């Protein structure tokens, strides 16, 4: 039963990962490693690695080549004047990097991106876990509730953002509703509050993802464990804290990782909610990179920005992957 559940949930995880190209790279490791346990008698030497060639070739074309091109571009003075013959655009070394760090809102954007992602994550985690636990035991209409829970996750970002923009516009539904109870919040889509608007909408859109993974973790708790803890007389909190939560650690660690990357890479939500140029309080990384590239035509500079942010994200990601051992086949960390 537990295997069944994990099989059903994994495609969802993978499709979520597939939305952000870089995320897919990170997440793609875990299923491969899980598929090759030693008990099948294959030594590491005899693994049929050649079977990875088609996938590997695609990865090179889709990820490695553009990445290298991007890095090369970041060393070029590439703008609308040189775009046409971009290969021969003037080579300016690290000038773009210097400009990105010293004379652009890049660091501010990194700070905004990371803090907004973390905030959204911190709120969605308990929400998702609570929802998963609430729908753990069978009751009438559970299937419906579970489907309803998934709606925010299934809706395309564009739709989510468009609907929320309509709700939050000045004098819109939200303002009217709050006004009836005497609350006047002010502008949602402009000014300092935009940051919180972004966090709010992101929470609404992404908690079902946590819920999904928490559910997968709960499904892997064997019946015997429930019975044993009941026999030992554990009450609900103790049971949750010491019996169930340890099972959730792996899936939730994965959810945290994918969720963070997804939030940091989320372009559609802020773009559709706030438009371009974005208010300074929501000029997150993807928006900044987009504006620099496609509005100001500074392709070299924006490539440098993208590269810096990639490195900035990769460092904690690497440390984190090491810490939770998602990349280790021997430790059943991701499983439990």
């Amino acid at each position, binding site marked *: *039963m537990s295997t069944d559940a994990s099989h059903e949930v994994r495609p969802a995880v993978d499709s979520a990962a597939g939305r952000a190209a870089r995320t897919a790279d990170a997440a793609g490791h875990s299923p491969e490693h899980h598929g090759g346990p030693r008990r099948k008698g294959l030594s590491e030497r005899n693994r049929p690695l050649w079977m990875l060639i088609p996938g590997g070739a695609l990865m090179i074309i889709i990820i490695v080549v553009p990445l290298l091109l991007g890095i090369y571009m970041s060393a070029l003075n590439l703008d609308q004047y040189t775009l046409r013959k971009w290969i021969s655009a003037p080579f300016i070394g690290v000038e773009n990097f210097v400009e990105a760090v010293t004379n652009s809102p890049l660091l501010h954007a990194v700070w905004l991106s990371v803090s907004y992602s973390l905030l959204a994550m911190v709120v969605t985690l308990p929400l998702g876990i609570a929802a998963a636990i609430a729908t753990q035991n069978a009751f009438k209409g559970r299937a419906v509730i579970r489907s309803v829970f*998934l709606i925010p996750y299934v809706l395309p970002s564009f739709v989510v953002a468009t609907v929320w923009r309509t709700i939050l516009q000045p004098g819109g539904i939200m303002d009217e509703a709050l006004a009836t109870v005497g609350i006047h919040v002010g*502008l949602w889509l402009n000014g300092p509050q935009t940051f919180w608007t972004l966090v709010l909408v992101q929470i609404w859109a992404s908690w079902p993802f946590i819920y999904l993974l928490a559910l997968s973790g709960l499904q892997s708790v064997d019946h015997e464990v429930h019975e044993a803890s009941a026999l030992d007389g554990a009450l609900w909190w103790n049971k949750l804290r010491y019996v169930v939560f340890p099972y959730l650690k792996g899936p939730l660690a994965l959810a945290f990782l994918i969720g963070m990357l997804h939030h940091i890479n989320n372009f559609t939500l802020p773009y559709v909610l706030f438009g371009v*140029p974005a*208010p300074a309080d929501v000029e997150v990384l993807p928006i900044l990179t987009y504006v620099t590239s496609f*509005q100001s035509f500074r392709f070299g500079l924006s490539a440098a920005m993208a590269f810096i942010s990639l490195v900035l994200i990769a460092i904690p990601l690497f440390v984190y992957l090491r810490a939770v051992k998602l990349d280790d086949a021997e430790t059943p960390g991701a499983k439990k």
Partner: protein
Amino acid sequence: MRFKSTTGLAAIVTAAALALTGCGSGSGTGGGGSTNADGKVDGTGKTLNVLVGVLSQYPEQQKQWQSDIAAKFKAETGADVKFETFASANDELTRIQTSVVSGQGPDVYGLGTTFTPTAYATKAFVTLSDDDWKKVGGKDRFNQAALGISGPDKDHLAGIPFVSRPFVMAYNKDILAAAGIDKPATSWDELAAQAKKMTKDGTYGIATGYKDNFDPWKFIWAMSVQAGNPLVDGNKLKMDDPTVKKAYETYFGWLTNDKVVDPAAVGWSNSNAVAAFASGKAGYLMMTTSSSIPTLDKSAIAGKYEYTLMPTIAPGETQSKSDGDAASILSGDNLVVADYSKQKDLAFAYIKLITSKDEQLNYQKIFGDLPANAEALASLTDAKLKPLAEAAAKSKATPFTGAWGDIQLGLLNVTVQSVPDLAAGKVDGSALEQRIKDAQTKGQASLDRASKG
């Protein structure tokens, strides 16, 4: 215990698939080169690719027009025309960038006038020679004012004018009359004074949208130019000039000091302003074009409104200091031919067809845009179009530099970042100055690159 979310999963997969197909819109490739036979272009068996913007107000008519013109073109040259459309300015930019880099894509592009300098800077479009001009029917056939933003100077023109869409303001005759105003304002000061008279009981003097993606910079540009500051002077950006600050103060002041604009306008785009005006709640509708005619004619104020030139005398002045009145930015659509196109003659033949007098008049009838063809423009007799035609003649081009996109973005950004202050009812002078200064710095850097590029 089974997790029944197959429908959910299916939906996810479908959504992902949709997203993927959305990304990979195919681009057709045209045939080979075209040949000249006795002055006529023979394009038998060839396909000309044309990229134009979607006219979201007239989707059916646009399709009809496209198939009609394709049939005519086929009869004339034997070649097919395949139309591709872009939905937004961003979409347009992306398409152009892709084509510029890859050296393939549409043969003919329809571009907004303010984007023409940026497109010209990429050098990916044909700068027309005298011979090329002959192929599109001669330079003389066009309204000469419309050529103002086709290239950096008279001898280097890449944009072929297709339609003019000058900006004017509309006014509600009843509201003006009720306030005892016999003639619309010609200076910005007068406009504010008149608007104050009209503002009462839920009616506002002016309808405008502060969250529009284009309008704000057009106001600032117009007021600055009319005060004698064309913003770009050679390689110098003059956004830190007092005239610019004065322009912002006037524009924001309608809401904060004069209180002649609905406070909700901080969240409005142009279409919200049109709607407010159409409901009879505003005396003036600023920064509008002939494209508002269909909406207004179907509204409660049908027959009660008229167009007129926007004020041409800068705030605090008594006469225009600009050479020419700068009643509007030079606005409309230009056509450009891709440099990589292997069937340029066919492209020119197509442009010749759609800029001919008859076709231009036909286009005006269907879509409302003014002809760029001089003869067609002169033959318009509709009284409602008179102020529009006048605005077209008194339009002034925005500076022709590849940096204009950045400058425009900077001007707009000042408004975007000021909106919270606007909503609070007061835009702090020093904060405004700081925002203008930031825009000046960025815009100047962009100009510096342009002069090197």
